[in-house]
């Protein structure tokens, strides 16, 4: 079977520090896959490597059947890989509407996609002309997810979507991700382990820049001896 995204024995560096030490994983069409592990084991770098924001020094990243290693990030994004990054990365000086417009890849259909985003996130409609920098964290997370939605992406790389949000807002974000997951595959980095297991079909456990364990999420709990060893 053809994987949508496949990382094969990927080694990635920041300067001289070796972050990914032979990471391999894949995401299939329609799947939601969680990437879990302690802080600093290379989860965010894995997403950045997939997008070629931090290209691998060796190993390959295959997307939709093509080797994209070393390509330009905007080309990979155009091919249908979306990013919902940590800290949401709003264009704070742009309005909510403009933030979403930037993410629309088909210039002919900007309005259609904008309507789609506001249908999916009705709350954003009333903020559409407000600067994104002035929104609350939860609202910004919705804008970030909306940007992923309107890009017509087949795969969304989602980094710490619940970080810094109040519990009731986290539930909204989780619902939004479930909705988005009906159209696209998700590779999800999430510290909140129960939430990650709830959203995902499968998970990879990372440690020291490598995948050390992989399984389906069914019946998995953080009390599992094997898993707890890598999370605490």
């Amino acid at each position, binding site marked *: 079977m053809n994987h949508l995204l496949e990382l094969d024995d990927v080694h990635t560096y920041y300067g001289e520090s070796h972050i990914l030490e032979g990471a391999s994983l894949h995401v299939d069409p329609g799947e939601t896959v969680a990437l879990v592990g302690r802080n600093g084991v290379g989860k965010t770098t894995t997403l950045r490597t997939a*997008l070629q*924001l931090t290209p691998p020094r060796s190993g390959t990243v295959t997307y939709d059947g093509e080797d994209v290693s070393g390509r*330009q*990030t*905007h080309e990979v*994004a*155009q091919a249908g890989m*979306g*990013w919902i*990054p940590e800290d949401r*990365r709003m*264009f*704070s*000086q*742009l309005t909510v509407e*403009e*933030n979403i*417009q*930037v*993410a629309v*890849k088909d*210039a002919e259909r*900007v309005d259609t996609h904008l309507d789609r985003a506001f249908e999916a996130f009705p709350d954003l409609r009333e903020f559409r002309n407000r600067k994104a920098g002035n929104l609350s964290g939860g609202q910004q997370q919705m804008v970030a997810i909306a*940007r992923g939605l309107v*890009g017509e992406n087949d795969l969304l790389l989602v980094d710490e979507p619940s970080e810094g949000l109040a519990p009731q807002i986290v539930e909204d974000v989780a619902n939004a991700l479930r909705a988005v997951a009906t159209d696209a595959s998700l590779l999800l980095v999430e510290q909140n382990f129960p939430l990650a297991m709830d959203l995902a079909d499968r998970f990879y456990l990372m440690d020291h820049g490598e995948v050390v364990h992989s399984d389906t999420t069914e019946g998995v709990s953080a009390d599992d001896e094997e898993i707890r060893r890598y999370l605490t």
Partner: protein
Amino acid sequence: MIPLVSLVDAVLHFLDPAVLARVLFDGLAKASIYVMIAAGLTLIFGLMGVLNFAHGSLTAIGAYLGGLVMVTFAASASGNVGRIALFFVAIVVVFALLTAFGGAMEVSLIRPLYDRPPLYQILLTFGITLVLEELLRMVLLFYDIQPSTDWLEAQGTRPEIISKTHDVFGLGVEGLEVFQILLGVAITAGVWIFLTRTRYGLYIRAGSEDGEMAQALGVNVHQAFTVVFGVGVGITGVAGALLMWDSAWAASIDLGAEVLLPAFVVVIVGGLGTFRGTVVAGVLVGFVDAFTTELFTSNIVGFSALPELFIFLILVGTLVLRPQGLFGVEEVGGH
């Protein structure tokens, strides 16, 4: 009490409608010039974080290129309409040539240095300035045009309607100032629409805030950099062509140095990289310049160097009270 008498005199002087009108038109014309000479600099810094020290010499090249078109074809374009039409041809030519030059400069010279500290870009663009100035000097000497003094032949191509002072309701209005104001407003509006109403402008505003995020959304930020650098240099050249007709500036090699300092003042006062700030700062500096020029070079007090001093006082005041500039956001332009 001579100072007191002077003060009263000064207030009375500015109550004269003729003087008020003169200050208003001077102020608007100078504002147009300041906004235009700073626009290219602020666009380039805003998106790319590159301080283009070649800005001044590119203005001078624009002035000479514009002058060249005017002088070459002036004989076949006579009358007010002909000359103004020719001037528009000249600015289109200048814009096209300098946009292409700026784009090529970005791809070949600036791009390899993005990952280096800003000092490298400053040294590079400063070096480009030295090269461009000497090349310009060689070309001018070859064609027997005095490089160090104003190019009067180019100024002589001004049509009559722009050269003279018109009588409007008994007030003297200089044709050149009206022309500068109209062109300044048109170009400011053009840049504004480009930035706020076009898809490319949206990419530029997004990319200037977070280039990495814009790329991850599918925006070709490299291409946007090339376009912005090209358009920024093109506008800079058009500003030079406008100055070519103004005897206070005129086409000369020194124009580069004359332009660079006030352009930086306007950009810094407005807030590095914000076009809105540059427009507001240009208007502010223009009016302070016009007001102090009237005050210190009319017969009240004779101190011809003071207007320039006041422009720099605005800069000092801004840096002390609001270092990020009037509309600046801290850390805009960083990568």
